[in-house]
């Protein structure tokens, strides 16, 4: 069960990157598939689910037993936990907030978005910064998992 949730967490990370990419493509006018608000909502829902599954896995990651991932990483490569994992843990909390702001802007301007390219360009700035942060957090989460995974 726990391993399934950890794997689901990884899959949701990929879904989030794809959904954010879809939102960026819609805002750039490079995709005709679906709606921009649909892409933004998909990003927000996947970010919230990613957050919930990550928080659940974290309970087992941080157990004080010698065999838990946190203990193994702190013993072998302390910087991987102290810098990479903790960056993902705390900076990752603001990702759903950033996506919620982009979604609010997309929903509120939905009619103007279709015909106003500069408006899409301005909202894209939030989406691009979010994608950049999500990719950094994905790397920061992948490295600890490759040393010791929650299962």
């Amino acid at each position, binding site marked *: 069960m726990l391993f399934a949730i950890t794997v689901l967490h990884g899959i949701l990370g990929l879904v989030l990157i794809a959904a954010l990419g879809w939102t960026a493509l819609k805002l750039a006018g490079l995709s005709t598939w679906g709606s921009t608000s649909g892409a933004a909502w998909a990003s927000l829902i996947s970010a919230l689910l990613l957050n919930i599954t990550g*928080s659940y896995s*974290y*309970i087992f990651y*941080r157990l004080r037993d010698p065999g838990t991932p946190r203990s193994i990483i702190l013993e072998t490569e*302390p*910087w991987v936990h*102290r*810098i990479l994992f*903790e*960056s993902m*843990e*705390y*900076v990752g*909390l*603001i990702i759903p*907030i*950033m996506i*919620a*702001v982009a979604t*609010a*802007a997309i929903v*509120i*301007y939905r009619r*103007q978005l279709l015909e*106003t390219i*500069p*408006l899409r360009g*301005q*909202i894209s*700035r*939030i989406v691009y*910064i979010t994608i950049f*942060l999500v990719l950094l957090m994905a790397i920061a989460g992948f490295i600890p998992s490759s040393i010791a995974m929650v299962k």
Partner: protein
Amino acid sequence: MKNNFAVPGSLAAAFLSSSIAIILMGVMVYLREEVLNSILGIYPALGTFGGIWLYGYLIWLVLWIVLYFALRGRASMGSLSTWINFFVVATLLGILITLASLEWNTLFQ
């Protein structure tokens, strides 16, 4: 100005509540070990992360709701580019405060 899009109060509420919440989350992370340890340790299995998660999102949502009802009647509260710049600066500040609390010395161990 052609690219100067007016931000209605409902969207300004989203920008403002999110900016404040991100900075407050950064402050909570920074003070998690010493000052706020007992307040943030609401669920022992999650350590201080549980409190940062709960209080951070609670502050964000409550602020958003309060500001939404306070500002929703305003048709224009400045330009979109100004609000986006404000939000990006607040986000970077929140991230920097968070990163400042990490144990960077472990990189050289």
